[in-house]
Every structure is written in structure tokens, then in C-alpha cells.
């Protein structure tokens, strides 16, 4: 009996602590486990008893790489409970902040963490020896994403200027205009980046996914929209719990999400892009077409190029917002708490991030539930690995290359394991 395994004890170039084990028997895959051993931190438990105003700063600490996503989903949930709508320039500033996070997160992932897989390096620093211009371009692009966050919200990790209802202080027009020259450079850089990323060598691996993303009537989604899929889902975010369940498996401190009616699904850049291509500005669509990236893109390895396109979109969107910016009269809308349950769902760089809170009359949290993107993708990642390994065996792929490409396949999802371990309450379980 031949029995082989692919085992990665500690995945590198991802956020947080995870490992991989794939068992094969007689040239068939018999088990795939993406193991998440990031220790639990119990956010949903200690959020109970906190004031609604403290929540965005606390949930930001779930993830150092996408804190804005946590702040935004928390704020929207609290505002929905209070019946407050944040619009006009305050809404634009929130989009601008999200642009900053997408730019820095996508530039980090595509060039510093994922591109080395495609080009055969252990990291971006080694890659810089042979491709110095590319790595310097990526670092500068990332920096200008961070510049938006620093200018608008104080710092790039755990920004301090986001509050329920808006901001503590809004920037002057001049403060934002000073970003424009660098963002114009970034627009050219992002186009170059797309060209470089679209030209990488991609393994053949087309899949039939159920993509889930937000969809807004006229915007490429950041903060708002309905939850839709390519297989018939079209719901208000408040109905999330009726359609999705989480399952606790023994080998992971993150819970697996599934659609109740079907099964696993796919969130993140590929999902957003395939479902919202028509909402991109024509300038971005044109670049996509020039690089043969029209939707649907169903090869997860090509998500790296789609991240490049989303980076270009985020830079253009940031420029659009800044050019039309006039400081609003007040930095925030007053939010008076009341008892109730509210929902927030926004597009983190790696996919939808759902929050649900129940408050009492004084705005104290009675119950919190957080569903991060990586836990939603876990099952899809495992399915990809299963199929990819079987495909590799069938084509006699060499074992080391297969093992290496499995790690690369996990990075297709830009997994944020630190996030995913924070901690979903179960409605359902399966053993």
C-alpha cells in the first residue's frame, strides 16, 4: 500500500499560524486539512459588556493587516441599530480610507507574499536582488496606500480616527490634496503592476465556484450593498444568518462557513471582480481587457492579477474622492444608542467581513458575532487543494513541486489566519 503525504508544519507568508496536511493513498487524495492553530483570543466573548462606541477600536485588533475592514463593519452595524445613515462627504471619506487599506494590503500580498511563489524566490527581499525595480515599485505603491490611512486616520495599523457615525476629525482639503501627486504616480505604477502580474506563469486550474460578494447599485463595493452570488443568492445583509452556517472542526480554531442551501463558497477579489466587473470605471475595464482578464476569471492562481486590477481601481477611486472633496461641516453624525440588533458587512481586501451586534438601551453590547473572510474561504481552499493534488498526481507532477504549489494555492486566498480565529458563534455543527 503506498501512502504519501504533503505536510507543511507552519505556512510562511500568510498572516497568522496555520499548517497543511494532505494524505494520499493509492494515488488518490484521502484527506486535506488546512489546520489553523492560531490560539483563540475570544473577541466575541469580551465584547460583551463594552460600549458600542468602543467596539470599532477593539475589533480593529483582530487584524493588523485589515483593521479598517473591522472598524467599518462594526460602525455600520452600530449605525444600523441606531437608524443612522452616514452619507455625503463622510461616506466618501470612509471609501477613501478603505482605498488606502486595499492598496497597502493588495500591494503587500501580491508582491511581498505571493509573487515570490510564481518567480521562484523564498521572499520579496531575495526577489529584489533580481527584480529590484519591481520590488521598489511595490514598496512605494504600498507606502502610498499607507499614506492615505496615515493622513486620514493617524496611522496605518489600527487607525485612531474612525468612530461610530464618522470621524473624530476630518481632513482639510489641502491635507488630502497633498496626496495627489503620489497617487498619480501610483496610478501609473498600478498599471505597470497589472502588466507584470498578468504575465506571471499560471498553473492550469479552472474551477466552478460559488462567488459571494457585496453588490451596490452603482459602485464597486466597499461598505454597502446586497450580498449576491453567481448561483442565485441575492439577500439583504441582515438575512446573513438565514443563509450561512459555521461548522467547528477539530483541527482548526477557526470555523468553516457554508451556505445552507449549497456548500462552500468563495469570497475575495475574484468574487468581487466576477460579480461587479460592470461597476468598474472604463479605464480599469480597458486595462483588464488589454491583459485578457475579462470576467469570469475562474483560475484562483490568477487572483494575483485581479488584485492588481483592484489596486488600480482603488488608486483611481482615491483620486476621484480627493479631487471632489470639500470638508463636511461636522466630522461625525451623532449616534444615540438604542436597544436592538444590527448587521454590518463590508469588503475587506480578502473578502466579505460580517458583523452582528445586539445592544441594550445604553449601547452596551449583549452579543457579538464576527465572520471573517478567511474562515469563509477555508473549505474552498481545502477543496482547491484536493482537486489540485489529484490533478497533479494525474499529470505526474513531481512531489516537491506539487507540495510547493499547494502552498501557493493557499496564498491565492491571501489568508489571514489571525483574523479567522476570531471566533464565530455556532448555529450549527457537524462532526
Amino acid at each position, binding site marked *: 500500500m503506498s501512502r504519501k503525504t504533503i505536510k507543511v508544519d*507552519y*505556512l*510562511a*507568508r500568510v*498572516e*497568522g*499560524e496555520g499548517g497543511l496536511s494532505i494524505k494520499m493513498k493509492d494515488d488518490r487524495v484521502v484527506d486535506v486539512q488546512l489546520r489553523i492553530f492560531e*490560539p*483563540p*483570543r*475570544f473577541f*466575541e*466573548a*469580551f465584547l*460583551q459588556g463594552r*460600549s458600542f462606541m*468602543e467596539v470599532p*477600536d477593539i475589533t480593529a*485588533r*483582530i*487584524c*493588523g*493587516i485589515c*483593521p479598517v475592514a473591522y472598524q467599518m463593519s462594526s460602525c455600520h452595524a452600530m449605525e444600523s441599530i441606531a437608524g443612522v445613515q452616514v452619507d455625503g462627504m463622510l461616506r466618501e471619506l470612509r471609501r477613501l480610507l478603505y482605498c488606502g487599506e486595499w492598496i*497597502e494590503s493588495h500591494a*503587500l500580498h501580491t508582491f*511581498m*507574499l505571493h509573487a*515570490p511563489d510564481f518567480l521562484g524566490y*523564498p*521572499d520579496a*527581499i*531575495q526577489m*529584489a536582488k533580481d527584480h529590484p525595480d519591481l*520590488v*521598489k515599485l511595490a*514598496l*512605494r505603491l*504600498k*507606502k502610498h496606500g*499607507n499614506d492615505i490611512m496615515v493622513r486620514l*486616520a*493617524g*496611522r496605518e*495599523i*489600527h487607525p*485612531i*480616527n474612525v468612530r461610530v457615525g464618522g*470621524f*473624530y*476629525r476630518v481632513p482639510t482639503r489641502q491635507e488630502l490634496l497633498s496626496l495627489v501627486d503620489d497617487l498619480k504616480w501610483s496610478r501609473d505604477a498600478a498599471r505597470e503592476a497589472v502588466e507584470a502580474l498578468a504575465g506571471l506563469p499560471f498553473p492550469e486550474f479552472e474551477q466552478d465556484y460559488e462567488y459571494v460578494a457585496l453588490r451596490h447599485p452603482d459602485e464597486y463595493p466597499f461598505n454597502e450593498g446586497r450580498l449576491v452570488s453567481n448561483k442565485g443568492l441575492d439577500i439583504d445583509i441582515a438575512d446573513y444568518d438565514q443563509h450561512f452556517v459555521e461548522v*467547528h*472542526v*477539530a483541527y482548526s*480554531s477557526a470555523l468553516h462557513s457554508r451556505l445552507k442551501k449549497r456548500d462552500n463558497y468563495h469570497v475575495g477579489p475574484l468574487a468581487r471582480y466576477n460579480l461587479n466587473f460592470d461597476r468598474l470605471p472604463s479605464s480599469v475595464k480597458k486595462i483588464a481587457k488589454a491583459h485578457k482578464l475579462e470576467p469570469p476569471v475562474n483560475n484562483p492562481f490568477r487572483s494575483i492579477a485581479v488584485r492588481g486590477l483592484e489596486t488600480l481601481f482603488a488608486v483611481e477611486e482615491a483620486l476621484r474622492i480627493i479631487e471632489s472633496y470639500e470638508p463636511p461641516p461636522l466630522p461625525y453624525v451623532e449616534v444615540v444608542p438604542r436597544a436592538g440588533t444590527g448587521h454590518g458587512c463590508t469588503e475587506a481586501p480578502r473578502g466579505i467581513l460580517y458583523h452582528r451586534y445586539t445592544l441594550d438601551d445604553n449601547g452596551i453590547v449583549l452579543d457579538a458575532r464576527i465572520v471573517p473572510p478567511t474562515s469563509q474561504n477555508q473549505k474552498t481552499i481545502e477543496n482547491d487543494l484536493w482537486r489540485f493534488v489529484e490533478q497533479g498526481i494525474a499529470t505526474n507532477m513531481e512531489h516537491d513541486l506539487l507540495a510547493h504549489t499547494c502552498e501557493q494555492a493557499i496564498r491565492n486566498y491571501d489568508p489571514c489566519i*489571525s483574523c479567522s480565529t476570531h*471566533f*464565530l458563534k*455556532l448555529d450549527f*455543527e457537524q462532526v
Partner: protein
Amino acid sequence: MTDKKPKLAVWKFASCDGCQLSILDCEDELLAVADAVEIAYFPEATSAESPPPYDISLVEGSITTEHDIKRIQTIRKRSKALVTIGACATAGGIQALRNFADVRDFTRTVYARPEYIRTLEKSTPIADHVFVDFELRGCPVNKYQLLEVLNAFLNGRKPNIPAYSVCVECKRGGVACVAVTQGVACLGPITHAGCGALCPRFNRGCYGCFGPMETPNPESLADWWLAHGMQPAEVQRALRTFNAYAEPFRKESERHES
């Protein structure tokens, strides 16, 4: 060929990854840092590894499992200098809020199958388990302070990281006091400097993410807040965030148990 670069290792325990991400956020300096040291272990950034000993280990995150107690002891043995980066490693982090509750209740609240979860009752700082050469504060750390600490250790000098309060940063930066002018509750008087008075610059009170300054007087600040109408529960919550288990904040917060 005889120039051997010092070996740098970066370790993660319970955390959000933000402090080690600060290294990658040094976009202008990253390639220079990578030139000055050998990055021997830094899984968030590289899949390459080289063997111990390490000249300097940066440690992010708090200790929350039995396995991690053993791991930090091994890291200590293999490191000439060990520096903690951030509030989790230095004070136990936001996850130390379990230290004021029963972690079994927390596990049941979050997980359907609590028996799958292995965790300690308390989240503790690295210095509770091994000797720490330097503790860099902040949630997250200030990346320029991180570069200063690296620079200092690589050159055998003491890091220039002032331990005075955020108030000093406001005064030096010409920032009007938000507590005095707006009556905002501000932890600046007892909070360690390092952020550059970020929150007051953005018109809000400091929320203490750098933890206690050297010799703080939290009792006096809390009494002042109470005299101005804050409720004991609000005082307690203000002290119980990212550095809740740092002794001065912890002790004062316990004075306001309801």
C-alpha cells in the same frame, strides 16, 4: 567574506500580526534593514530559514497556551537578545481581558465544541515567562521606534525610547490639551509616550494603547474623572483595553469593580 551579518528572528504568539507587519511597513527602510541583518526566521515575510542562535529575536504576541510557554523558553535559549514588540507581548494584549473573567465561559460563548480548544486561563506577557532585554510598547508599535530599537541593539547601545507620558508629547507638539479645553476623558497623563500624541492631534482623548508610562498615577486621574461625572464602570472600561493587564492599569481598574 568575513563580515557576518547579525541574525534577526521574528516570532509570533497570540496577536493580530500588526507589530511584525510594522517591519514590512518600513517601506523606505526595509531593503536597507534586510541588507544590515540576516533575516534568519520571519515566517510572515519569508519561507527561508536559517538555524539558531539568533543575535536578536523580536517577539510579538502574548502567552496563552502550554505549548507557547515551552516555545518562548526555547526561543530565549537560542537568542542573544530578546525584545518584545507591542502591547500583547509586553502586557498580555486585549486577549488578557479573559484574566478578569472565567476563560471557560469565554470558550463556551465562542465555540460549539469547547473540548477542541486548548487555552490557558490567563493571557500573560512574555516577561512573565523569560528574561526580556527590552520591551517596546504600543498597539501597534511605532515603526520608527522599532527601527531605533533594532539600530540600538545592532550597535550595542541603549534604545532611545522615552518613558514619559503622552502629555509631554502634546506639550512638545503644541497640541491643545483635549482634557482641559474640551473636557474629553484622556488617558494621556498616565500613558507611555511613543505615538506622537496621535489621538489628541485628531481631536480625541488618548485611549492608552501604549500602556502605562514610568511611575504613573492612575488613581489621581480616575478620581478626577469620577469628580467630573464619569461612572465607575466607564472608568474601568477605559483602563481595560489593550494593556488591561499591565499592573498600574489593572490595579486601578480593580478599584472600580461594581
